[in-house]
């Protein structure tokens, strides 16, 4: 019989499960504004998990990382995205609301299949130990696949960008589970790099909108790979 998980393992597993649910929420939401809110909540979960790990393993660096991560992903990125989207009423006119390539129900069903695939793939790796909550790692694998699904099933640049940012959250979850003791310098560099990516995504979204008066990618069909 398996022993009951400790506080850290239990917290990590619960937070990972909540993050996956939020990921499905992003997939399901028609309005990008709501997706941004869910993304901010998912990012807040990452910071909470970092604090839990910092306390459990006595890693003070992780407190700083949690604060940096929260400042960037809970506040800065959502703020930038909201400014790009404009007032709620405008979102409808920009070709963003409900820009599904599949129906929402089909998108969620397909994502459940992908998530199960990712979950069992990562679960079958057999990577586990006292400090590695295997369930959280499997959920991170599921989140990677759902993030890809989000980028694929939505035909607007804002949702696709959020898909990429949530992919980064999935990787952050895996990093906290597997590599919590990675030197702070490198963790900070990763975050700085994300900031750079956010800026560039923002610039390209703005450029796309100024050219087409829309955030939809439905008309990006001139180049065929």
């Amino acid at each position: 019989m398996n022993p009951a998980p400790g506080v850290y393992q239990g917290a990590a597993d619960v937070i990972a499960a909540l993050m996956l649910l939020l990921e499905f929420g992003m997939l399901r939401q028609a309005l990008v504004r709501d997706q941004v809110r869910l993304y901010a909540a998912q990012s807040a979960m990452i910071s909470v998990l970092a604090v839990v790990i910092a306390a459990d393993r006595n890693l003070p660096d992780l407190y700083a990382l949690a604060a940096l991560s929260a400042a960037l992903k809970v506040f800065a990125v959502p703020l930038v995205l909201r400014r790009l989207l404009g007032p709620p009423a405008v979102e409808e006119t920009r070709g963003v609301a409900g820009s599904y390539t599949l129906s929402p129900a089909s998108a969620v069903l397909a994502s459940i299949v992908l998530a199960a695939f990712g979950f069992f793939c990562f679960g079958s790796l057999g990577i586990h130990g006292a400090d590695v909550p295997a369930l959280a790692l499997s959920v991170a694998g599921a989140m990677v696949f759902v993030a890809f699904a989000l980028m694929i099933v939505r035909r607007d640049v804002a949702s696709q960008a959020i898909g990429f940012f949530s992919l980064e959250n999935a990787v952050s979850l895996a990093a906290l589970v597997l590599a919590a003791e990675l030197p702070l310098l490198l963790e900070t560099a990763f975050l700085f790099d994300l900031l750079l990516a956010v800026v560039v995504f923002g610039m390209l979204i703005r450029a796309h909108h100024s050219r087409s008066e829309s955030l939809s990618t439905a008309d990006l069909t001139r180049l065929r790979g």
Partner: protein
Amino acid sequence: MLAVILAILIVPLAVAVASFLVPARVAAVITIASGVACFGLVLALVPDATGAAPVYLSYLRADALSCVFLLATAFLYAAVAVYAAGYLKGRTDRYARRFYLGFNVFAWAMLAAPLMSSLALLWIAIEVTTVVSALLVAIEDTDGAAEASWKYVLIASAGLGLALLATIFAYYAGAQVLGAHSNLAIQPLISAGSRLPKTPVRLAFLLAVLGYGTKVGLVPVHTWLPDAHSEAPTPVSALLSGALLATSFYAILRFYQVAGATLGSGFPRGTLLVFGIASLLLASLCVFGQRDIKRLLAYSSVEHMGILAIGVSFGAPIALAGVLLHVLAHAAAKGNAFMGAGVFTVKYGTKQMSAMRDGLRLLPWSGPLFLLSVFALSALPPSGIFRSEFEIVAGGIGSGDYAAAAVLVILVTIAFFGLATSTTSVLLAPVPAAKAPAETAATEKIPVEIAASGAGAARGAHGNGGAPAARGTVAMQARGRAGGALAPGEPSAWMVVPVLAGLAVLVLLGVHPPGELSNLITQAAAQLRGAP
């Protein structure tokens, strides 16, 4: 050595900042100076890099493998900087300053990547190349450029997300042996190879091939590449194709070293063989039927990245030496081909090959040079690519991979016919006499419209390929034309000189590579086989 490494990291960045603040002409001059200086600095690194390579400031290191890729990038940085001085004539000062800012930062990030001693910093440097080059692809501000840059940044960033996951798994594997506070330094990971847990290393390698392979352009994650290469300004296309793809391949090679030390060579070689064959197969077929000259060259890049992957998969010393020589020769040849194609797009005001005819007569220097560059790219002797591909095939046969070697030869030959057919029609075919008046009018209308009303008129008329090439070349078109017919002549001498230099390098690499370079390649090939 530390001073040289620091200079390589500081000079392009300082020049990038300065470029944005000074007039465009000054920016062009200091960018050329920076490119030449970086190439000289990298050459100065070569003798030291063939020996033991210490780590400086905890995170900087230049060994033989790094130096091969640095040489390719630095040479292309210098050559393309010279070319850009001609290409940007007629552009606004604001455009040119933005271009030089991005161009120098892009070159800096590509030079920084091989100098990083840690897999984490290597990932960061490559991510920086993505965000900067995505902006450079978009700089033309056309519909095509906007679409290509969005696809590029999204697909490449997603790929790099997987590469980051690979880095995390590599850390986990390393931490089991080296301790939790290891900083993902490459050499300790390789040294600890046989003691690392196998499953995380295997997964890390697979994710790295898939993730960095997106940036390399390996099939099936190559889809951004033809779009971005064709829509970017030509100097950026040359850097993307000749340097960025190789730099990303360098990251795969670092994971290959770790995986080889842990798992043995079978699994990593098999993985690269699958991706290499798929890339070579698709690219050699796709070069047929391309109408856009830059897309044609972009698919050729996919082909050459496939050759690199197959070469590494052979594993024999001569094949690995061939791969590293191929990195250098491909940088020179593909840079040359893109720079030549850029002259054609400037001259004809379009990227559509159907509108390009009689190139040998109309471009008395660039025409023959482009022909020679394409032949060099297609591995005709005495090009360096002939030598490198010969070594790769010899390595394949020597290691008993007869089928893969045969497939490689067949697909490379198919690609050669595709490239040769398209380019010779551009260079040699005259404008059909029967159609001359009407069709010439249609074809020649491109630059006339552009000259009359700017790029907007051409955008609709030429769909995929017309506008970007045309936008900044109005002045050159006007210089190249006389009363509605294209007159023979070069748009700019700046666009010819670097191609001549590239051909000289290709012949040098093909006929007799310098002794120091041969030593460097031998040492780097030994590293790939597990030497420290």
